[in-house]
């Protein structure tokens, strides 16, 4: 009995300390690392952050370069070319391999299981001239059935809908005459269709007119998005897959030079997408099928797989934004910058000038050499190789000028 009171006190103390420990551990945050000295960063939106931690911003997050939007932008695959001895028809042969097990960094720090044609999203830009025979050896190395369905004119059996190609090495040869003239998407057409498209099984198919088009600096932009958490809403949008990429790696073009953009909208879930160009208007050729147009605008709206050709020339130098004017999309990555520069030999930037622009039938299967040095989307690499002046430098440098 003499122990009664101390025991009560001990018990009460124990309870109190248990409660104290519980709540103290809850109140104090758990940090595992010592703090670094604060550094100042200028982010891609212009916001300045001073922090002892890490920065979440495409400019500063070093990513594994698995897809290089700079390379994709001006890369056209003309195939391996031969001539049919009997008909004299040009034959373009391609090998396209589908896979569905890759995990790719679709936005800096965000990893997503992409399904790919030839390892990239979008797949290669297949380019032929009207009337050419296109022969595609399609190999499905994935785990699911896949196909290639081209928008265009072709026999039913070549439509890539009712002939699923099994995974694990299944093959099918698509063969058709290129046409009509214009820009078209191709994509997998296995059900559930949306799933196969949003994972990345799509690409661009360009059919040039026989007489060619006016010489221009040509580029491809696939407007796409990624629903990384599978809630039927896109988490990221982009022109050419990587969000915000062209904003901090501006597309370098020359003043007074004709620019031709083959633009294809592959965004799912959202009924529309659009394209707005700053400081300029462009001629727009819907689907690229007409040779003349009455569209002279700075704003086009596109539904799923709608596409066309934009042609414009800048008469002023400097930085010009292009982006979705559905601003939600641009604030989730579908935004970029054209950096218009004076033409001339004095330009020591990595943009290769006139020589690097392919225009149709010269059999150049890769004009990427001029752009390969861009070093992907690591800001430091971009900044060191570019001739960027003024505020633009901040987009590429690792640190703001007033950095600590």
């Amino acid at each position, binding site marked *: 009995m003499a122990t009664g009171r101390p025991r*009560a006190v001990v*018990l009460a103390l124990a309870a109190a300390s248990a409660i104290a420990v519980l709540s103290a551990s809850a109140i104090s*945050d*758990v940090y595992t690392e010592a703090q670094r000295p604060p550094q100042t960063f200028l982010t891609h939106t212009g916001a300045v*952050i001073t*922090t002892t931690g890490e920065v979440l911003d495409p*400019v500063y*997050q070093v990513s594994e370069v698995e897809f290089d939007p700079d390379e994709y932008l001006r890369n056209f695959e003309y195939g391996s070319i031969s001539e049919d001895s009997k008909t004299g028809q040009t034959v373009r042969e391609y090998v396209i391999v589908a896979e569905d097990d890759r995990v790719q960094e679709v936005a800096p*720090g965000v990893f997503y299981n992409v399904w790919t044609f030839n390892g990239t999203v979008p797949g290669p830009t297949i380019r032929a001239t009207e009337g050419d025979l296109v022969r595609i050896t399609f190999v499905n190395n994935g785990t699911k059935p896949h196909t290639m369905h081209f928008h265009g004119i072709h026999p039913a059996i070549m439509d890539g809908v009712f002939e699923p190609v099994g995974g694990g090495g299944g093959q099918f040869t698509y063969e058709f005459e290129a046409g009509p003239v214009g820009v078209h998407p191709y994509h997998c057409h296995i059900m559930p269709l949306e799933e196969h498209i949003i994972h990345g099984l799509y690409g661009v198919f360009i059919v040039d007119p026989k007489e060619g088009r006016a010489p221009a600096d040509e580029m491809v932009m696939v407007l796409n998005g990624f629903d990384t958490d599978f809630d039927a809403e896109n*988490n990221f949008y982009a022109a050419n897959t990587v969000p915000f990429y062209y904003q901090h790696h501006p597309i370098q073009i020359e003043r007074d030079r004709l620019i031709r953009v083959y633009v294809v909208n592959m965004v799912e879930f959202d009924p529309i997408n659009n394209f707005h160009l700053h400081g300029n208007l462009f001629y727009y050729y819907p689907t690229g099928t007409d040779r003349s147009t009455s569209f002279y605008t700075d704003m086009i709206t596109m539904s799923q797989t709608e596409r066309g050709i934009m042609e414009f020339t800048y008469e002023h130098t400097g930085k010009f934004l292009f982006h979705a004017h559905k601003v939600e999309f641009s604030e989730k990555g579908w935004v970029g910058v054209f950096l218009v520069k004076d033409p001339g030999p004095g330009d020591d930037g990595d943009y290769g000038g006139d020589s690097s622009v392919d225009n149709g039938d010269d059999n150049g299967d890769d004009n990427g050499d001029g752009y390969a040095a861009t070093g992907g989307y690591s800001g430091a690499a971009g900044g060191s190789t570019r001739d960027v002046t003024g505020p633009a430098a901040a987009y590429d440098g690792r640190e703001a000028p007033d950095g600590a």
Partner: protein
Amino acid sequence: MTDGRRPMAHERGRGLSGRGSSGAGRFRVVASGAAPLALVAILVIYVSGPGSTMLEVGVPLPEVTIERVDFVGSEILATVRNTGPIPVSIAVADVNDRIHPAAVEPDAHLERYETAVVRIPFDWNVAEPYTIGITTDDGTRFEREVESAAPALSPSGELVAFFAVIGTYVGVIPVLIGLLWLPFIRRMGRQVYVFFLAVTVGLLFFLALDSVEEAVDVSQENLAGSFNGLMLLATSVVVSFLGLFYAGERLSGSRGPGDGGRAGEGDGRTGSGNGASPRLAGPMAIALMISIGIGLHNFGEGLAIGAAVGLGSVAFSSFLIVGFAIHNVTEGVAIAAPLSRERVAVWKLAGLGVLAGAPAIFGGWVGGFAYSPIASVVFLGVGAGAIFQVMVVLVRWIGRGGSPANGSNGRGASGGSGLSGAPFAAGIVVGMLIMYVTSILV
């Protein structure tokens, strides 16, 4: 588990005292206690240790909880915690589902239960709702909604004073005012006295349920599932109830239900109550316990008020303060009722009032400046347990007749003044009704 262990410990104790000096016996006891623990450790290591692939079935999904959002200057600060089963990296921050550059401190990689602060430069507007989103490296997005942005509070002297004033208005002053009913209750007959005690029980019951409800709300809104908020609450309530019950029994020297021996007025049986101070026993002890219980409750209430102001989810109007104040006057009655047959020094009475009311001030400070949902749940649970304990004491007190003169003659004898009498039932009903009606004002 607990049920299994208790008798074991009990037996061990007996065994020890029985064979006191036997070293081998002692070792055997320790070993028999430790062996199952060792086996559990081996099991854990075998199943989850390095090199074990046995249970790698299914895909563990990441989970990040945004525990709080602060609006500071032209920045939004989101405190995030990895509440999932696997480590994650934070990749993207967004405001209203629009991606914004941000900084993560100390770094973007979060081990289980590790926290980080995501700082998003953003010119937010006062009183507008915002949804803050965090996307992890696998592309999963987690979000938290803030109903109305308000500048985050920092512990400036002005704010400390602000919470002190609010705490005084809603806690200290109303309780003290309630105590002023003491002379009134004192003049009433015994039936009325029992009625007022029962009113107190009703008030306390309402307060306890109120605490529990509040804690459930907090755990559902702010606690990640992995923290098991409801069970944390249940555990807090039970630990607090039993801890205070045990301590109370010891301190007041009471030997449990059915024993009429209150230590109060030098009754012969008090002797069995060992060294408990007579001052701590009887009505004063009960009033003290009520004060402590209500104090814990008010601390939880202060936490809620502070957090609400700090998180911007409440516009703190004078109307609301009035509501809380009226509501809390009843708490003074609860303390006063058991004392109405005693002569109590005014300073002691005031001390009880402050003990019950002042924690609202501290709660406000903690809630406003260092809000933690876990701490809130724990404190609210402890408060509820404390109040339940006081209720038990009060009910037993009433059962004995509610008066020292009545001695051990309880169980509703003597004209319905006990638990089966009309005053008891009516009192509880009236107490709860009073609380309900005044709670509408809040």
